[in-house]
Every structure is written in structure tokens, then in C-alpha cells.
């Protein structure tokens, strides 16, 4: 239990240990720890910034979406209006066309009617002539109309 040279040996060992720790162990480890700390702090800050960015982006996206909706609604409205216009326009055109067609038809009808009337008149006159001819045939006075008949037959004969 005596104090002896062991003490000196232990002091030398201790000094060497402390020197080695101070030189080669403590600085790299504490450096790594500090650096990691700052890295973590940076990471946290970046995460927070990212969150903020995300929120801002979400807001922006909502805005864009709202605008797009508005725009599409506008476009739809415009299209509807345009469609209505087109419908109206085509309705007008169709009506005009109809009127025109009706007019044409009427004109044609009239034409047809005139032609028919003409035909009828011709036929009627032919009939009348025929009827008149038949009547005349029965009441014909050969003497009286000798000259006339002779002329007709002459004409027929010539024909």
C-alpha cells in the first residue's frame, strides 16, 4: 500500500493517453458531431422551407385552378352563345330557304296549272270542235254546204 514508482509510470501512461485523446480522438469526433448537428439543423430548415413552398404552391395551384375554372366557364358560355347564334342563324336561313322553296313550288304549281289550263282549253276546244263537228255533221245540208265541203275535201285530198 505504499506510494512508489508505479505512480510515475501511471502518470506517464495517463499523459500519453490524454495527449493521444486530445490529438487524435477528440477533434475528429467532436467535429463530426458538430457537423452533423449543423446538417440536421440545415435539414430541418430546408424541410420547413419545403413545407412553406408547398403551401405556397398549393395556394398557387388553387388560384390557377380557380382561374382555369372561370376561363372554362367563360368558354362554355361563349360557345353556348355562339351555338345559339348559329342555331338562330340557321333557323333564319332555313325559314328563308323554306319560303324560297314554297315560292318556287307555288310558281311551279302555277305554271303547271297554266299549262293544264292551256291543255284543257285546247282539249275543250278540240272537244267543242269535235262536238260541233258531230252536230254539224248531222245537220249538214249537202246542197247548202256543197261548196264548203268540196273545199274541205279538196283540202283533205290534197293532204
Amino acid at each position: 500500500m505504499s506510494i512508489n514508482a508505479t505512480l510515475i509510470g501511471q502518470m506517464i501512461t495517463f499523459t500519453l493517453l490524454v495527449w493521444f485523446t486530445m490529438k487524435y480522438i477528440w477533434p475528429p469526433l467532436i467535429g463530426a458531431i458538430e457537423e452533423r448537428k449543423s446538417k440536421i439543423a440545415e435539414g430541418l430548415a430546408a424541410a420547413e422551407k419545403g413545407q412553406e413552398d408547398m403551401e405556397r404552391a398549393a395556394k398557387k395551384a388553387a388560384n390557377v385552378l380557380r382561374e382555369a375554372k372561370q376561363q372554362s366557364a367563360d368558354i362554355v358560355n361563349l360557345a353556348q352563345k355562339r351555338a345559339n347564334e348559329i342555331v338562330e342563324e340557321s333557323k333564319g336561313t332555313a325559314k328563308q330557304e323554306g319560303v324560297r322553296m314554297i315560292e318556287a313550288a307555288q310558281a311551279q304549281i302555277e305554271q303547271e296549272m297554266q299549262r293544264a289550263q292551256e291543255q284543257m282549253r285546247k282539249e275543250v276546244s278540240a272537244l267543242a270542235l269535235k262536238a260541233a263537228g258531230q252536230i254539224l255533221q248531222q245537220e249538214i245540208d249537202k246542197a247548202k254546204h256543197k261548196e264548203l265541203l268540196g273545199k274541205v275535201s279538196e283540202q283533205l285530198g290534197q293532204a
Partner: protein
Amino acid sequence: MASEEHAAEGATQYIVHHLTPLSVGEGFWMLHLDTLFISAVLGALFIWVFKNAAEKATTGVPGTGQAFVEMMIEFVDQQVKDTFHGRSELIAPLGLTIFVWVFMWNFMDLFPVDILPAIAGMMGMEYMRVVPSTDLNATFALSISVFLLIIFYSIKIKGVLGFAKELTCTPFGPWMMPFNLLLKLVEEIAKPISLALRLFGNLYAGELIFILIALLPWYIQPLLSFPWAIFHILIITLQAFIFMVLTIVYLSMAHEDH
């Protein structure tokens, strides 16, 4: 079991045998080979583990080993930051070395008391005292080194005159100079003595109790040595911690300029 063998030898002889260091030389130049060897091996182990971690230190995700080492580093660093408000390249590594080294010394206490002496006996060594902190030389080597650092930093920071002034003119002013000097000398010298004796006393007593338990019949031994070992886990950590914290406190006091 072993205890019966030793009972034949005699309990006193058994205890004395366990507490006698393996030594060479005579008088002051006697060397306790077991203390020197075991503490050097433990120191090398400390250096090896921490140097490995330091070499592989990454700022990314640390592995288990690095995490453990960093935990120790941060623990010591926190202690230093709490107590010492200055810049020093030395104090934190010094604290770490003291804490880990003393802890490892003390940890030798938890090996069953007969194992290492038995192995040493097989290798032809008559004595083997495995816990360096049960050697006053080891504890005083630490505390005297710390004491020298206290003196060194006191003079470095305050100057020879400043340190002399602090020794003679505090706490009661220049008119009480001899009394002040006496108080201060006692205060300063008490530091290394209390550091060394506290550690030595705790571990010596702890080891002695383990040896006494080892003298009991084998069926009682686990009942006593198991709770004592668990309690000792607390003691050895606490003693290492106290030694480190007091070292930091003393050195930060040496750095304070009045």
C-alpha cells in the same frame, strides 16, 4: 468450491493474497506490474475503440459503435460546457480520458475475484491485483496529474503574481495574509488527495466486499455478489463520473481570474 480450498489456507491469507500487487523492485523504485499492465491494456483498449470510431467518423448516419462513442463524447462535452466557460483544447479530452479510463479500471471490479488471479497463477504469477483503482499509485497518478494541471493553468491564466495574490489575499483580504495562505494551501492540496482517496476508498472497499463474499459458502455467494455487483455498476460509473466532473470543476476554477 474455491472457498473451501481457501478456508484451509486461511481467510486472512486469501484476502491479503488478493490485495497484494505483483511487483518488482524494492522501496520507492518498486513497480506494481499488475497495475501498470492492466491500466495500460485498458488504456490501449480505450484508444483502440475511440480511435476506430474517430477514423470512421461520418457526419451521416452513425453506426452503433460510432453512436456509442459519440454519446460518450457528447456526455463529456456537455459536462465541460456546463462547468467551464472558456476555450480549452485540453479539458474536454482530459475529462473523456479520465472518465473512460477510470470507468474501465473500476469495471475490472466486476470480474469474479478469482478468475484473473487464477489465470495469472497458471502463467506463473504469484500475485494479481486486477483493479487498478485499488492501487493508491494509480489514483494518485491521476489526481497529481490533475493537480499539476491546476497549478499550470493557474499560473498561465493569472500569472505568477496573480496566482500568488490569489493564494495570499483571498478570501479575507491582504491583512490576513498568513491565514489566507494556510487556507488556500489546504484547499489546493486537499483537491488531489480527496480525488485520489475517494476513488481508491470506494473501489478498495468494494473489492474487499467481493473478496469477503467469495469466502462464504458457494450457495450463498450468488445471493450476495449478484446484488452487490449490480450496486457496483452504479458505484463504478459514479466514481468515474465524480472524478471527471471534479477535474473539470477544479480546472475551470484555475481558469477563473478574479
